[in-house]
């Protein structure tokens, strides 16, 4: 990446003609440096106006705007985007937890691009050919910078998402023994194929180590289920049967019941009970338990 950036910059610099883009770029940078405080303020004003980055206070916004501006000009000057990339990443790291959206980040970078372009129009309005050439030098560089910041932000976001997915996956689903030979497997949240196979593995192992005869799988906490996951559930039930355990599935929500019937998953072999309590009661019956209140005064 950086190699390509350098090449891009060198083509600009090595343009030997006196009016070459390198010269123009230098002139441009000098202009941006001279007017930096005014341009920064203009930029910060436009950001507030556009109601972007509302999660940040005015001072914070201005501090970040200053830093981004400096990085921006530096990237234009040196032609290397690495520093800017690193800055974009650390900025993203700071602002993502505060709920800043992608469109806001892209928005502010594009605003900066607009603010700077306007100032160029203003400066060179008398000399249209020069303005044209200045823009020739400015636009590709500016676009590339905008691209880098946006990509940096999205990458950082994706990294956070991946990290969170990993964390969710590691929240193992417990296989709990509630009575001798009776296991409960409460499933909460989204089941993807990977989690589904992990669940099955844990359950089968649990059946073996606890010598379970009946397993209650409670899916009250599962909001949605697709065909793949439903089939996986059926497979889990079958595999448990092969180990000699009966499975009772409880807590199928109306939505899931509808989906399963609509997509035509064969649930004929599944033993389902409305809620967890009913499931446990049925399991107790299967195991020969009878639960009676201790206070027998009623009888």
């Amino acid at each position, binding site marked *: 990446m950086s190699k390509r950036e350098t090449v891009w910059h060198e083509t600009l610099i090595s343009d030997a003609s006196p009016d070459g883009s390198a010269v123009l770029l230098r002139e441009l940078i000098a202009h941006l440096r001279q007017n930096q405080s005014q341009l920064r303020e203009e930029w910060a004003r436009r950001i507030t106006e556009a109601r972007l980055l509302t999660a940040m206070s005015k001072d914070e916004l201005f501090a970040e705007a200053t830093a981004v501006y400096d990085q921006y000009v530096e990237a234009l000057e040196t032609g290397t985007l690495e520093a800017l990339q690193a800055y974009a990443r650390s900025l993203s790291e700071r602002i993502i937890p505060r709920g800043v959206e992608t469109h806001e980040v892209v928005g502010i970078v594009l605003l900066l691009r607009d603010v700077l372009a306007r100032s160029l129009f203003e400066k060179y309005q008398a000399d249209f050919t020069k303005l044209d050439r200045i823009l020739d030098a400015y636009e590709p560089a500016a676009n590339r910078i905008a691209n880098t910041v946006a990509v940096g932000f999205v990458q950082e976001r994706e990294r956070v998402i991946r990290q969170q997915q990993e964390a969710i996956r590691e929240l193992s689903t417990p296989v709990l023994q509630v009575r001798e030979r009776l296991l409960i497997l409460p499933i909460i949240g989204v089941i993807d194929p990977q989690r589904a196979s992990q669940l*099955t*593995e844990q359950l089968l192992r649990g059946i073996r180590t606890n010598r379970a005869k009946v397993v209650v799988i409670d899916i009250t906490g599962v909001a949605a289920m697709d065909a793949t996951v439903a089939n996986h559930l059926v497979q889990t039930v079958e595999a448990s049967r*092969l*180990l000699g355990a009966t499975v009772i599935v409880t807590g199928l929500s109306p939505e899931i019941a509808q989906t399963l019937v609509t997509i035509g998953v064969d649930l004929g072999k599944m033993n389902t009970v409305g809620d967890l309590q009913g499931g446990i009661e049925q399991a107790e019956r299967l195991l020969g338990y009878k639960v009676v209140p201790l206070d027998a005064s009623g009888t």
Partner: protein
Amino acid sequence: MEVPVLKQGPFLIATVQAALSDEDLVHLRKAMIERVVTSRSLGVIIDVTAMDIMDSFASRTLCEIAQMIHLRGADTIIVGIQPEVAFAMVQLGITLEGVVTALDLEEGLSYLKEKFDSDA
């Protein structure tokens, strides 16, 4: 690899010791359906704890053994399927339909005893 078949009271217990070839399975089938009547057994337990792979032929043969033994007037239970094997089987669509299964030999024996007691 011959599968030893032990008589334990009114039950026959076949313990698979290692992976079985197709030929071994056919041999086992033949031995079981003969022994079940000659030994006047009420139930048969096939212990597959040592099998770390169960292909379609093996599972079909086990189903056949169960059905044939049923025709010969006894019950069959398959015990000791390993969790990994069970998972692999259902993924291949092998579910041993209609065959009773249990966790291990002990479970299998208590199942047959219970059934035998309630029948008697």
